[in-house]
């Protein structure tokens, strides 16, 4: 009873303030929004996919250790050459020399690997020589043939430096650890294009190139299409609400909520420096989610206001009635959605913590604005009671009225059809596959995809596996086990090359023993290995070994480069590597990392995050609504539409072959956020009519009352179908699935929930 009084007192206080001081109710939120908006200047954009992994995950720990000891393992590849002509000619070598030198002079770049600066180890007239493969910018034919012969005799160098057909050079650019990939990507493309674009076909690729390019491209693409979506949304709202001012005010609520959400993100970074609040590729879904939720609040208030104006013609009374009717359901939908998003605090992906908190803040602010700013703004306008917006029902309103009658007349049939659809969806879940490889985000006919596919197919490949070995590296037993691992890696047809200190030792051994190929083996004596490495340090450049062995020969790195693998291939391949690591007898400590492993771990994280998020949200929503309505069955019914929608959506994705990725996974959040809104509005209205002693045609009345805003909300959110025109495949899916999600949540509420409540009405009416 106490809480009821409290609820009433807050509601009446808000109503009084809005009606008595509308200007204050508008200016105060605007000032608050502006202060929070300043925080947007502190937003930090982070394109590092690795930042998503929890710090205590083994592949992340291993990744960090590898980066620390051997520098960045994410590279940009530049391939240049001719389609039908060999690259072994004077001018190409001259250009390769210029490109290598130009890139080497940039402080943002740590290391360049190309034929121009690779060492050549050979036995010349009894001399052991380690020198540059390309001795100068200008070469004669004899020198070029010498390089060609050397490259073709060294499979590892060949695979890393030229294309399969020998028509393209491959240059590997290793960015400096502290420099963002997008910065290095821009530098590499600028230098590459300026030196090569006139005479050669150029392709760029590699993980650093993709991760440096994609987040910016996705952000631009989404921003553009979001704009289109917003225009479409405003048109749909305008056609149905038929008042520009009202639509403008709904947008004002949406935009202010977005500003507060983004501003909070910036302020937290500014005040705490927390990386969990950086703006990553995952966060690009936040605006869409908040838009749909804030839109829902605004639409309910505006449609209710017009409905009341139609009945009583009095602005103040209409506003009071709207707030009175909607305060509790909007409060409850906001609380449940906030609770659902706050569960992301426990998700294994780091950025989801900041994601959940900031999105919750945006939702809370949308709730406050919908019940203060929005009605206050509506109260300031002099409304024409004869306008179409007030005097006549909207198109959708009339359709919903007819639809309500149909549902109520055949509740059992509706329920059975709904259940069948849900079961089909559930069956489709088993077909759902996960893919987080961003190289697959592009359509095959785009230039970007063609370029990275070229590097992937014709050069070394885009993916890498790194095995960090902690053992006495000079010990032949260690080297032999490393060699066995390389044999396993090379046995995978997708692996183009693998390399480690073992290759250097074997090559030195062969050259020392009169260049006899029989001695291209690991020596059996540790002292021999040590002598070979000492000899290398005397005759060659120690820096050549920096990417394969640590300074004290205690840690080695095996690298395998491979073409893009499917999710299943990655999982199977990593399993084989793990088994081999487990079988090591002399290497006491080995860990696996690399982009292939990161992708595998991200797959598990995406699944884990989605499952945790969906289950915890649904349970929380059920609990909150059960407590609020003091009845578990109402709590259970409130999750029916959203559970159905989640099952149908993910099932549909499985059947349609749409992969679950860290981008498409956002659909579950949208469905939960919007789905719970719809069901709570429905249930609250139903219970309200019961309290008002309405007994006849109660379901029909509820559908008439809340069906229209629900459908209008869903229809306007469907405008994000504009994302279907994105360049990125997962964003396209998001566009299509948004339409599907809106349809399934609205449909679930107005059919399954309505039919269930109708069938159970006798017990609820008591």
């Amino acid at each position, binding site marked *: 009873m106490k809480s009821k009084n409290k609820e009433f007192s807050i509601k009446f206080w808000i109503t009084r303030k809005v009606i008595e001081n509308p200007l204050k109710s508008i200016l105060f939120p605007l000032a608050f929004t502006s202060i929070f908006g300043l925080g947007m200047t502190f937003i930090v954009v982070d394109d590092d996919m690795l930042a998503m992994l929890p710090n205590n995950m083994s592949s992340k720990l291993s990744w960090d250790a590898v980066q620390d000891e051997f520098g960045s393992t994410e590279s940009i590849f530049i391939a240049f050459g001719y389609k039908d002509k060999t690259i072994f000619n004077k001018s190409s070598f001259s250009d390769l020399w210029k490109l290598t030198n130009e890139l080497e002079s940039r402080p943002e770049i740590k290391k360049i690997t190309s034929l121009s600066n690779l060492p050549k180890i050979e036995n010349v007239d009894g001399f052991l*020589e380690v020198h540059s493969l390309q001795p100068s910018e200008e070469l004669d034919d004899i020198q070029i043939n010498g390089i060609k012969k050397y490259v073709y005799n060294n499979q590892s160098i060949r695979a890393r430096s030229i294309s399969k057909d020998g028509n393209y050079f491959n240059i590997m650019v290793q960015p400096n650890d502290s420099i963002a990939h997008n910065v290095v990507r821009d530098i590499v493309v600028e230098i590459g294009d300026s030196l090569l674009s006139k005479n050669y076909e150029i392709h760029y690729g590699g993980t650093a190139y993709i991760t440096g390019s994609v987040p910016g491209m996705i952000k631009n693409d989404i921003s553009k299409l979001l704009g289109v979506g917003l225009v479409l949304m405003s048109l749909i709202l305008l056609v149905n609400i038929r008042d520009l001012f009202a639509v403008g005010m709904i947008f004002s609520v949406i935009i202010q909520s977005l500003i507060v959400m983004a501003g909070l993100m910036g302020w937290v970074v500014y005040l705490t420096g927390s990386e969990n609040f950086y703006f990553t590729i995952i966060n690009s879904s936040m605006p869409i989610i908040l838009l749909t939720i804030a839109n829902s609040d605004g639409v309910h208030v505006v449609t209710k206001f017009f409905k009341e104006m139609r009945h009583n013609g009095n602005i103040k009374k209409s506003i009071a009635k709207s707030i009175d009717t909607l305060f509790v359901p909007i409060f409850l939908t906001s609380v449940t959605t906030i609770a659902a998003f706050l569960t992301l605090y426990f998700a294994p992906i780091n950025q989801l913590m900041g994601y959940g908190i900031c999105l919750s803040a945006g939702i809370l602010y949308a709730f406050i604005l919908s019940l203060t700013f929005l009605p206050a703004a509506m109260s300031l306008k002099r409304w024409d009671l004869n306008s179409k917006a007030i005097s006549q029902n909207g198109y959708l309103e009339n359709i919903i009225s007819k639809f309500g009658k149909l549902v109520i007349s055949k509740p059992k049939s509706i329920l059975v059809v709904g259940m069948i659809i849900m079961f089909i969806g559930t069956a489709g879940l088993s077909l759902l596959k996960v893919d987080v490889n961003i190289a697959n985000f592009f359509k095959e006919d785009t230039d970007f995809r063609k370029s990275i596919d070229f590097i992937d197919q014709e050069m070394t490949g885009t993916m890498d596996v790194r095995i960090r070995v902690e053992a006495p590296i000079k010990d032949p037993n260690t080297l032999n086990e490393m060699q066995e691992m390389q044999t396993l890696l090379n046995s995978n047809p997708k692996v183009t090359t693998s390399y480690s200190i073992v290759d250097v030792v074997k090559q030195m051994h062969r050259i020392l*023993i009169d260049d006899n190929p029989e001695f291209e083996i690991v020596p059996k004596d540790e002292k021999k290995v040590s002598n070979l490495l000492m000899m290398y340090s005397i*005759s*060659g*450049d120690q820096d050549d070994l920096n990417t394969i062995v640590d300074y004290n020969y205690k840690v080695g790195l095996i690298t395998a480069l491979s073409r893009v693998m499917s999710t299943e291939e990655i999982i199977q391949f990593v399993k084989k590597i793990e088994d081999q690591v487990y079988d090591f007898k002399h290497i006491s400590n080995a860990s696996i990392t690399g982009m292939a492993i990161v992708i595998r771990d991200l797959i598990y994280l995406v699944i884990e995050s989605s499952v945790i998020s969906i289950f915890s949200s649904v349970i929380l929503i059920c609990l909150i609504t059960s407590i609020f309505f003091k009845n578990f069955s109402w709590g259970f019914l409130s999750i029916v539409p959203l559970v159905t929608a989640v099952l149908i959506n993910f099932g549909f994705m499985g059947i349609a072959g749409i992969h679950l990725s860290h981008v498409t996974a956002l659909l579950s959040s949208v469905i939960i956020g919007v789905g719970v809104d719809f069901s709570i509005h429905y249930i609250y209205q139903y219970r309200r009519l019961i309290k008002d002693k309405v007994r006849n045609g109660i379901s029909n009345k509820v559908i008439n009352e809340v069906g229209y805003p629900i459908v209008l909300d869903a229809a306007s959110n469907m405008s994000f179908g504009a994302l279907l025109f994105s360049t990125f495949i997962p964003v396209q899916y998001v566009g299509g699935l948004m339409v599907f999600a809106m349809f399934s949540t609205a449909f679930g509420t107005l059919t399954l929930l309505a039919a269930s409540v109708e069938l159970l009405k006798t017990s609820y009416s008591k």
Partner: protein
Amino acid sequence: MIKLFIICSIQFFLLINNLSAQTGYELAKKLDNKDKPQNMTSRISMTLTNAKNKSRKNVMISKTASQSQKQMIWVLEPKSDRGMSFLKIEREDRKTEMRIWLPAFNKIRRINANRRSNSFMGSDLSYEDMMSRSLDDNTYLRLEDDQIGGEECYVLEVIPKKSINTSYSKHITWVSKENFQIVQEASYDKKSKLKKIKNFHYAFVNNYEIISKIHVKDLQKKHKTDIYFDQVKVDAKMDEKIFQEKSLKRLPLH
């Protein structure tokens, strides 16, 4: 007395004027003409430290003759390479011949040490840094005097002539006014970016000021090398016949 004072003052002024008027070339020539021991034996401890502050240490015995044109080095540490040795002979034609003894393989191999920019044993000293510079290979410009660690120094800009095979564009050399020894040298790469800074410390051995410590820092690689020379003997009785292949296999007792 006044006359004497005036004469002394004039002489002092002339002396100062004469010193400060020395050209860069004259200073370099004076450096080149300094007495150097004919042969030297020392124990060398070389500590290499990379950008991540990881270190490794080599201990060697070195014998030089003919003013460092002939050199033999035997490795004492690390243990796995104990007994490895090198023989380096700089020929008249400026070609360098280098042989290495690999005890684990029981083999002697020749190494090409003519790539002057190559690092010596992974240190920040290149073969070029270790070779004696010929006076006429460079041009010298005297810069404004400076202080290094409180020590008054002449400053020379040393620019290699175009005909010279070098990996440097120039060196700035600080020469102590007190003992006329090089105390610091900054070397610039071909793109005129500062590459290395070397600091030298000296100790007296048999009336010679001999280098006791060299600290080299490669600013581009963020790598440093500290070399200590101890148990130094100069102009001791040394048979130059030891500078041949067969000596490589025998680790000297001292």
